[in-house]
């Protein structure tokens, strides 16, 4: 089937009334939950996973997830701009410039440039996904066990090295994640590992449980300890009661180039198996700052500083779907939970996905286009509704999150033990947040660790226990070399800065804050 045929079939599936309804529910729920402060897209999908269990076909569920995926991003931007609480690190640039714009009475412009930028980037990068996914999947068919092992190493190490601020803490987080992934029966030999004699641990610890524990329980406990320090001032949409417009001609002419540049940076970075959205949003921010004629406005609310990073963030988000769909490698927490949701329906992403589940995957891609249009229509006109969501008082909000976290795990497992385990992971998450350990490596370690080990042992099995299999295949060597580069890369700015005699400047979070 050609790409066009596949896509047209996908649209035919998505444009049925039932699936359109799923898409509409997805984007609405995604935006609603994304707007809630402190909840990012990963947790949104993890919490809503049980809702799809009763669905007969996975198609509707995935169309809904695609809607949630994008919706949570759009919603998150609104919160970053109006309340200055980025739900994830990729929204930090938006939070800085967007919130400064909002404080200066330009909230609507910030929201508009972010929403339209997200739409432009989302649509263009979905187009790129459409064009590149199938050729990349056919390339990936030739990948061998040692390549997959190297890919998993690269994905884990690069995210660990690039996301956090301290490599040591990042690697410790990764080790914790790898440990979580080891619990249960060994897939190849059936040997019990770290089960401590408990039957309930034989099945292992699910990624959904880890995500709910870390993001819902951990975040709520973390918030609970510092209630007095939370930002609670929502910037007004129309300052002084007079209605202001969304975007002037000048704003538009300052925004369209950053939208396109952000997309150009975001998509390839997201599509790399080293992925994630943090680096491209940061790069886009620095790039816009350098190119802008209004450089002095940066840090005080420059429209380019919202337009570029938001586009980059959204484009990277679609880019992340490339390694996820074609290789089965998640490179962000959100992608990890998407992978978990695929597995709930017994769909295994990887090179064969486009052959085995062609109808499903094309429907998913088509729904990204549809979801983007829906979100543009839904986001700005309903902004007053989303502002009301932002006004939900924190105590009942977080009480509700804990209730949903509990049901989320209980409904899936029917086991009190699993819920207690999620709470335990949550307490760990509380301390990790408190002492500034990055969270994403835990999740990637838990999901990629088992895959890495299986591929390692499979490669050894094929090579008769000859370790040289990892250094003789060019692709494996290249990927492992890239993993080393990823670990060294974060130190480069520091070293260069030291050579230049000044400390590094990483957004506004310099080491000497």
């Amino acid at each position, binding site marked *: 089937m050609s790409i066009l045929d596949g896509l047209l079939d996908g649209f035919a599936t998505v444009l049925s009334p039932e699936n359109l309804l799923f898409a509409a529910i997805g984007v609405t729920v995604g935006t609603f939950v994304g707007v809630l402060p402190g909840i990012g897209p990963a947790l949104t999908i993890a919490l809503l996973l049980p809702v799809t269990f*009763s669905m007969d076909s996975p198609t509707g569920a995935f169309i809904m997830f695609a809607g949630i995926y994008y919706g949570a991003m759009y919603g998150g931007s609104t919160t970053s701009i109006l309340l200055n609480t*980025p739900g994830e*690190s990729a929204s*930090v640039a938006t*939070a800085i410039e967007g919130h400064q714009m909002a404080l200066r009475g330009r909230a609507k412009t910030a929201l508009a440039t972010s929403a339209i930028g997200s739409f432009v980037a989302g649509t263009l990068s979905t187009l790129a996904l459409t064009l590149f996914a199938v050729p990349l999947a056919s390339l990936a068919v030739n990948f061998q066990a040692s390549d997959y092992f190297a890919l998993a190493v690269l994905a884990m190490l690069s995210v660990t090295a690039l*996301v*956090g*601020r301290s490599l040591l803490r990042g690697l*410790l987080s990764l*080790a*914790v994640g*790898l*440990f979580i992934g080891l619990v249960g029966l*060994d897939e190849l*030999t059936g*040997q019990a*590992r*770290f089960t*401590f004699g408990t039957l309930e641990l034989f099945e292992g610890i699910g990624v959904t449980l880890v995500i709910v524990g870390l993001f819902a*329980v951990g975040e*709520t*406990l*973390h918030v*609970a*300890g*510092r*209630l*007095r*320090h*939370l*930002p609670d001032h929502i910037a007004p949409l129309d300052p002084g009661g007079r209605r202001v417009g969304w975007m002037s001609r000048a704003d538009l002419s300052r925004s369209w180039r950053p939208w396109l540049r952000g997309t150009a940076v975001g998509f390839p970075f997201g599509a790399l198996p080293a992925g994630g959205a943090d680096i491209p949003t940061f790069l886009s921010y620095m790039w816009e700052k350098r190119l802008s004629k209004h450089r002095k406005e940066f840090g005080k609310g420059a429209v380019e500083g919202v337009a570029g990073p938001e586009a980059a963030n959204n484009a990277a988000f679609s880019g992340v779907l490339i390694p996820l769909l074609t290789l089965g490698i998640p490179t962000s927490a959100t992608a990890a939970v998407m992978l978990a949701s695929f597995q709930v329906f017994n769909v295994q992403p990887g090179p064969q996905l486009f052959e085995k589940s062609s109808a499903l995957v094309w429907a998913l891609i088509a729904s990204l286009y549809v979801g983007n249009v829906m979100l543009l229509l839904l986001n700005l006109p309903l902004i007053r509704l989303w502002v009301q969501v932002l006004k939900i008082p924190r*105590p*009942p909000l*977080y*009480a509700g999150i*804990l*209730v949903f976290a*509990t*049901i989320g795990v209980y*409904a899936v497992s029917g086991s*009190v033990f699993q*819920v207690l385990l999620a*709470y335990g992971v949550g307490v760990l998450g509380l301390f*990790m*947040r*408190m*002492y*500034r*350990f*990055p969270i994403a490596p835990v999740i990637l370690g838990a999901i990629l*660790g088992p895959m890495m*080990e299986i591929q390692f042992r499979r490669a050894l*099995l094929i090579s008769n*226990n000859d370790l040289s299999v990892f250094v003789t295949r060019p692709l494996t060597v290249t990927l492992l070399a890239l993993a080393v580069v990823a670990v060294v890369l974060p130190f480069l700015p520091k070293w260069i800065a030291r050579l230049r005699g000044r400390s590094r400047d990483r*957004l*506004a*979070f*310099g*080491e000497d*804050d």
Partner: protein
Amino acid sequence: MSASESPARPEAPRDGAPARHPVGPRVFAGVLFVSGGGLFWYAFTESGDDPITLDSPHLAPLVVTGLWTVLAAVLLVKSLVRPDEAPPADPETDAGETDPADVRWLTPALLAVALVGYVLLLPTVGFLITTTVFFFAAAVILGSRRWWRDGVIAVVLSTAVYFAFTRLLDIFLPSGVLPI
């Protein structure tokens, strides 16, 4: 979230005042080290008499817990030798806004107790009653003083969720002592 807004860390000496070294990070590093070591030992005993070869299922547990222990040891030593050196705020966790010293531990501790009570009673007492009580209690622990509002939300939320899950989505939630 900008640099100018973030509160100064108390461990950074200001105006010549002596530095305060927070104990928390060192305790946490110590706990990580001890638990890593314990798990390494467990992995070692779990392997029994089996030889630990490259393709054995015992290799990965030893490597991972060994790595954990070594990294935690480095962190522990660093935090003991140079306790001032905290990493900069991580936007992902948004932790830079509050210093651990400003955290009130009672609230999360009470919440954790409420959570455990909630899930232990859930199967026997039932979803509706436990969720209503837990929601209300959690809101109060989190500082809400609008009893009526929270009470009404608690009842409406738990009822709506119960019937939506069990009747619309066919997902089992325990009915417990209520005849529903």
